[in-house]
């Protein structure tokens, strides 16, 4: 049996063990604290560069709002893209070697370097090397992506030595990005791919004038892009984070994240398809009549939506052009001057319905009778009418030979008689005649949402300079007045809407309005120009213009009922006065007759008179084709029976 250990010895052993342990722990703690202090206070040179958290800022790019057309097709959008750039300095110093290391080396370059040291002037030899290296990079890049190697080579050679960032290609396709990445393969040769956003526009050139352009600084520079810039513009966000030297995020301090906002999207009332259709048709007509330019505007009379707005200019060799040129549109279509907005024209007979309806409303032909013969027929169209105080007599156009008195005042419109219009305004005071124009909105901007103060308000003579002989008479057949296509369509819509004119608009109202829910197809505002009954009476007369009058031959649709009016005015001379043998031909019409869905106006400037110059002949076919095309596209059933339509309806009903 073993004796029990000495209790005192055991206690001493425990005591020593405890002291040893405590001493050990203290030593370890002292070492740890010392090491921490050393790392904090005096780190080694190797650690010093990587120690501590770093702040890193990451931009959060946001996109500018998208612009859509009436049916949701994109007109203008921010496209995420890549840009290829090079650090020329780095490439010429080091990067070129890394290409050669991987691929076939350029012995010529190395040989030249040797020669350079031995023989030639250093500057010359360095330039030679630069050329060799620039050519090498441009050739290799051209093997990978679609790029003009000559341009790249030139840009590289001409880049100053201090330049550290040279853009090689602004917009790379996805496959090009992949090819460049594969080719670089992680090597640092001075090339870099940077994220960027580019604004892409769709649609024809004539649409660019409406949608406009975004400048390099991301701000709208023209058109809708400029007009709605504040809402379309995006606000980039920013993320500030604290990271380790290795890049691991440690924290995102409070308030250091700014989300940013995408720009607001907008929908225009323009229809891309109708715009293309109108541009193509107008262009064809300008060619056919060798005209100097043309304007075409299409609106929906129910709500004032502008569906298409085309303006074309055509320069003719060996022709003394009288139409103001617009060189900017040849440089960049979006910077062009949209003449639908900023230029007014003299409408000629197209203006007659407005004065005629206003005169009828004032009682002309009823309470204020016009001169009649013994049989009660209206005494007009008997020959040139002399007006006291007027320079020239009022004559009817050559296509309206003098036949004698008329049965009713509607015939004045149907046959477009200048002599008849004189009798329509003769009973009216100057104030009354001028007021007709004002009520139809002539002389005031349409404020359609584009152009702002640049929009032309047209011109009507002030009352103090107004006279019956030279103003009322001239205005009655569309002279001594200038209007825009926008004003004409707005005023003409009164005949479609029983006297009401809608506020024209180019931007659809937002459906997210806090106010009363608004249907995007509803008009914003309707203003009365005429009583409904007078508007309907004018519409009936204008219907006869298409079936019996000046639009019968060239502008009558075979599928849809229409009503409209043509006009031919003398072309103004740039220095004042008018050309006697050069004209502005225009037609305005709406269809279908019962429920008009579309108003089309076409103005053709300075057509070749040897081919044709009357409004109905020159502009009529454009209006007719557009009415047919647009209503078909809109799904409006033809309201005129044609053989083809009858066949279709018979097939649909299953009868033979």
């Amino acid at each position, binding site marked *: 049996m073993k004796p029990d250990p000495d209790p005192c010895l055991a206690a001493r052993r425990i005591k020593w*063990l405890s002291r040893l342990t405590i001493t050990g722990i203290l030593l370890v703690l002292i070492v740890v604290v010392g090491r921490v202090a050393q790392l904090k206070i005096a780190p080694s040179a190797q650690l010093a560069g990587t120690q501590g958290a770093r702040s890193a800022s990451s931009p959060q790019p946001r996109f500018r709002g998208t612009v859509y057309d009436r049916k949701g*097709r994109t007109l203008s959008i921010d496209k995420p893209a890549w840009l290829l750039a090079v650090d020329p300095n780095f490439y010429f110093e080091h990067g070129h070697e890394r290409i050669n290391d991987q691929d076939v080396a350029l012995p010529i370059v190395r040989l030249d370097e040797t020669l350079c040291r031995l023989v030639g002037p250093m500057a010359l030899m360095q330039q030679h090397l630069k050329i060799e290296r620039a050519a090498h990079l441009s050739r290799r890049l051209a093997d990978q992506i679609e790029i003009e190697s000559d341009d790249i080579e030139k840009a590289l050679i001409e880049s100053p030595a201090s330049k550290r960032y040279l853009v090689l290609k602004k917009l790379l396709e996805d496959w090009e990005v992949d090819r460049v990445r594969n080719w670089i393969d992680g090597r640092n040769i001075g090339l870099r791919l940077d994220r960027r956003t580019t604004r892409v526009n769709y649609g024809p050139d004539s649409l660019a004038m409406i949608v406009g352009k975004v400048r390099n600084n991301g701000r709208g520079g023209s058109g809708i892009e400029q007009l709605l810039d504040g809402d379309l513009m995006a606000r980039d966000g920013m993320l500030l984070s604290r990271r380790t030297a290795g890049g691991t995020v*440690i*924290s995102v301090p409070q308030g250091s994240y700014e989300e940013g906002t995408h720009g607001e999207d907008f929908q225009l009332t323009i229809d891309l398809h109708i715009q293309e259709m109108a541009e193509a048709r107008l262009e064809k007509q300008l060619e056919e009549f060798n005209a100097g330019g043309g304007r075409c505007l299409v609106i929906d009379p129910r709500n004032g939506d502008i569906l298409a707005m085309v303006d074309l200019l055509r320069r003719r060799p060996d022709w003394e052009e009288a139409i103001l040129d617009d060189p900017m549109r040849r440089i960049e279509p979006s910077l062009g001057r949209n003449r639908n907005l900023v230029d007014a024209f003299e409408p000629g007979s197209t203006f007659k319905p407005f004065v005629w309806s206003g005169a009828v409303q004032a009682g002309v032909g009823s309470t204020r009778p016009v001169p009649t013969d013994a049989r009660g027929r209206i005494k007009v169209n008997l020959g040139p009418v002399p007006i006291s105080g007027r320079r020239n007599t009022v004559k009817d156009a050559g296509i309206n030979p003098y036949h004698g008195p008329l049965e009713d005042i509607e015939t004045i419109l149907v046959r477009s008689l200048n002599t008849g219009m004189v009798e329509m305004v003769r009973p009216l005071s100057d104030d009354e005649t001028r007021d007709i124009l004002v009520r139809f909105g002539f002389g005031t901007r349409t404020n359609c949402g584009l152009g702002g103060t640049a929009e032309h308000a047209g011109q009507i003579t002030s009352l103090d300079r107004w006279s019956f002989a030279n103003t009322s008479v001239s205005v009655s057949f569309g002279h001594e007045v200038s209007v825009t296509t926008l004003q004409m369509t707005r005023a003409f819509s009164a005949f479609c809407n029983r006297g009401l004119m809608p506020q024209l608009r180019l931007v659809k109202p937002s459906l997210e309005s806090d106010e009363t829910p608004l249907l995007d197809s509803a008009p914003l505002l*309707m203003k009365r120009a005429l009583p409904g009954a007078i508007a309907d009476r004018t519409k009936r007369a204008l219907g006869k213009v298409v079936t019996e009058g000046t639009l019968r031959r060239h502008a009558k649709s075979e599928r849809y009922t229409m009503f409209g009016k043509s006009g031919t005015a003398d072309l103004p001379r740039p220095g004042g006065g008018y050309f006697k043998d050069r004209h502005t031909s225009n037609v305005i019409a709406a269809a279908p007759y019962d429920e008009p869905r579309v108003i089309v106006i076409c103005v053709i400037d300075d057509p070749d008179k040897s081919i044709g110059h009357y409004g109905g002949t020159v502009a009529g076919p454009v209006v007719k084709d557009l009415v047919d095309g647009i209503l078909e596209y809109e799904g409006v059933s033809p309201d005129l029976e044609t053989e083809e339509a009858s066949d279709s309806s018979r097939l649909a009903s299953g009868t033979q």
Partner: protein
Amino acid sequence: MFAKLLTMLLALGLMAGLLLVNRQRMYETVGERIRLHGEVERLKRRMQELKVRVAEATEPAEINAMISKNKDDWKSIRVTPERVTMADASDEDVIGR
């Protein structure tokens, strides 16, 4: 005494360890949040790219090319025109807001 000391040391060690684990988890969470944020940003960018592709594919020229390629006889859908009733319903000179 030794047991107390050991217990205290173990407790302190455990607390320190837990704090370290907690700190590591916090870093991982922040890292994950940043990764997810980056993913959301990437998806937003991708969505914009897809919008651009839709825009390119729905250009009238593209659609016309597709129609002519397939030789389909496309016709627009017939719609019943909506009647403009505002002018009929009111004799006011200005309608709207």
